[in-house]
């Protein structure tokens, strides 16, 4: 069964179609790439999937559930998590608090327990602390747990975004340009990390990326978007030789 099924999805902003008639199907455990020239509508697709935008037309089915128009936090409850192209961390909070906030939906104590400092509070907080620390460790951020997120270097901020997304315990992870601004070595490490977390957490991953070496290196299937439409999809090898893709990218970036 498909984990995510997108049918006839369209979104227009005051008449301008940003995404039109998108069809997409992702099976459990797949690692899919979403590529396309600048302004092709890739991030809009993410915003539609995660409920930031309400689709103009079409349906999104996730784990057999239709989820058009659900607010983003409910999409998160259903098991979809994302990172942001323009990093959106909670800058004035510590690194570990960033992760704890994402883990909040799994916390067991209620508001009154927290206010009255009942035993459930201490138990819950201890669990959060430990889990958050584990996530940080995976991304090598545990030594910076008590630093403010805004003080991290760029590459670590990107990794913290992924750690934070993972803390919501998703089944589908959407990564929006995770390698943006990283050097080749960092990109290489990130590639391995993505492969590893997929196995470790049983994840399905959909990623937007401009770095072709990363996309071609890790993705099993690729969707190519141009002017809001899917112009091609297939394995990396098929995509590389697809004339439509080459045309869309001509003068843009070397494949």
């Amino acid at each position, binding site marked *: 069964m498909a984990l995510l099924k997108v049918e006839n999805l369209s979104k227009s902003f005051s008449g301008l179609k940003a995404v039109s008639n998108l069809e997409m199907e992702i099976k459990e455990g797949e690692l899919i790439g979403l590529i396309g020239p600048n302004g092709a509508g890739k*991030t809009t697709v993410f*915003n539609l999937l995660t409920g*930031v935008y309400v689709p103009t037309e079409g349906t999104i089915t996730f784990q057999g559930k239709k989820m058009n128009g659900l607010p983003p936090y409910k999409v998160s409850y259903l098991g979809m998590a994302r990172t*942001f192209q323009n990093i959106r961390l909670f800058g004035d909070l510590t690194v570990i608090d960033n992760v704890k906030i994402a883990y909040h939906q799994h916390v067991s104590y209620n508001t009154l327990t927290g206010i009255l400092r009942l035993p459930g509070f201490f138990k819950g907080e201890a669990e959060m602390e430990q889990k958050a620390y584990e996530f940080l460790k995976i991304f090598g951020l545990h030594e910076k747990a008590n630093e403010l997120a805004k003080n991290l270097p760029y590459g670590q901020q990107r990794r913290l975004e992924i750690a934070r997304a993972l803390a919501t315990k998703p089944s589908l992870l959407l990564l929006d340009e995770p390698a943006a601004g990283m050097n080749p070595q960092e990109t290489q490490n990130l590639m391995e990390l993505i492969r590893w977390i997929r196995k470790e957490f049983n994840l399905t991953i959909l990623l937007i990326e401009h770095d072709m070496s990363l996309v071609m290196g890790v993705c099993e299937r690729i969707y190519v978007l141009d002017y809001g439409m899917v112009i091609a999809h297939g394995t990396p090898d098929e995509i590389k030789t697809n004339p439509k893709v080459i045309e869309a990218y001509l003068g843009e970036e070397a494949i």
Partner: protein
Amino acid sequence: MGSAGDLILQQLINGISLGSIYALIALGYTMVYGIIQLINFAHGDVMMVGAYIGWFCTTVLKFSFLPALIVAMFLSAVLGVIIERIAYKPLRNATRLAALITAIGMSFFLEYGGMLIVTPQTRTFPSVFPQTVYTFGNVAFKYGDIVIVITTVILMLLLQFIVKYTKTGKAMRAVSYDKDAANLMGINVNNTISATFALGSALAAAAGVLIGVYFNTIDPLMGIMPGLKAFIAAVLGGIGIIPGAMLGGLAMGLIESIVSGIGYSTWRDAAAFIILIVVLLIKPNGLLGKNIREKV
């Protein structure tokens, strides 16, 4: 006599006079908001200062209406620029909250600093116009009504001309659209912002003098309520949009007059705030506003 039609017509006339004053103040709010996204809480108090300058010119210096108006407008424009340079300019890159609090502080400063200088006592504005009342059937309008409307119309036409056709006006529109790009195009952003404050403050001062002339009394806290209501008028019309401020001002004046006219004058201020909240909830960008969404 006393038919409902006459009553409505009478309130309509009062409403247009009051609304013209609100519109003049609202223009300053909307222009400043349009250019630096700041609710200039001190704007109503600049209006108060303008009223006092007008009062000083007419009582002490024995000026007639027009010279007093021009002096008040000019000096208030200078005050507006000084306020901007001292209090707001250092905060151009600070948070919205910091700027808003500074504006509130500036408002207090003018109100209570004003009290220290001119005492809290209410002053009577001399009658610079004949107290003639024209009656048409059962509907009366004062000489002052006509002066207010004519002054407002002239000032608004002047403002439209400045904003649309002068270099400064074009620069203002460019800066409100995109400050950085305007800067790159060689527009002096600081001077343009100062010019906006000068224009807005001059209009507020005109409103202040008109209030003095129309209601005869002025006091240091007179700027608070008209200031808030003019701000509501600006929001009602769509903040940042000049025709919106004019429309919103007139609408506010009319609504207030009607609420008073049907015998609920103690609820007049509440009506203004209820309108504000209803507008914010239903159409937060105002009657003439466009939808803007945050980019994700």
